[in-house]
């Protein structure tokens, strides 16, 4: 099992750093929706999801990869903004932020479905 989804790129040929996606992946429905959207974005090749816990735990490979990222997207389910704050505490302030509650997904009442995931993805693509 790998520590994250997606492929590892080579910087030869002037390739830019990865577009990294962090999801709060919280226990509420909106956290699940954020997580599923980040995974789908990775499967679709729009970016690469990385483990937010790796930032909290200062896992060197994840931190160093994030430092060279072309862009960083944090997807939070609710206004607690756990993903954005975790990144900020680790020193990552150049972060695009998507909060699902701002998109009308209410904690405890959000449906995690292909339709809601597609809705989140369409907004996330603006930042990737």
């Amino acid at each position: 099992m790998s520590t994250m989804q997606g492929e590892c790129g080579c910087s030869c040929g002037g390739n830019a750093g990865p577009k990294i996606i962090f999801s709060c992946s919280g226990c509420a429905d909106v956290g699940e929706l954020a997580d599923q959207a980040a995974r789908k974005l990775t499967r679709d090749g729009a970016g690469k999801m990385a483990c937010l816990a790796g930032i909290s735990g200062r896992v060197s490979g994840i931190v160093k990869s994030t430092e060279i990222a072309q862009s960083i997207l944090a997807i939070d389910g609710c206004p607690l903004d756990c993903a954005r704050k975790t990144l900020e505490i680790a020193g990552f302030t150049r972060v695009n932020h998507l909060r699902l509650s701002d998109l009308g997904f209410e904690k405890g009442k959000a449906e995690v479905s292909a339709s809601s995931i597609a809705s989140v993805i369409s907004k996330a693509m603006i930042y990737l």
Partner: protein
Amino acid sequence: MKIQVLGPGCAKCTKLLETAAAAAKELGLDYEMEKIADINQIMSFGVMMTPGLVVDGEVKSVGKVPSLDEMKKFLR
């Protein structure tokens, strides 16, 4: 000291390996060098872009070839 170079074997990976060896030699280090090309093994470090440099289990550099001076700092 264990030095691991992560990368599929392209030009930058080779350059990083050479730089690491040169820096270790200049510093007079007793070291073991390992080249890791397997993508799953590379990703197990959390690395998302190669080349990568790992020193005693800690990722020091990702996606670039450090200069000789930078490399010496990583190895000290």
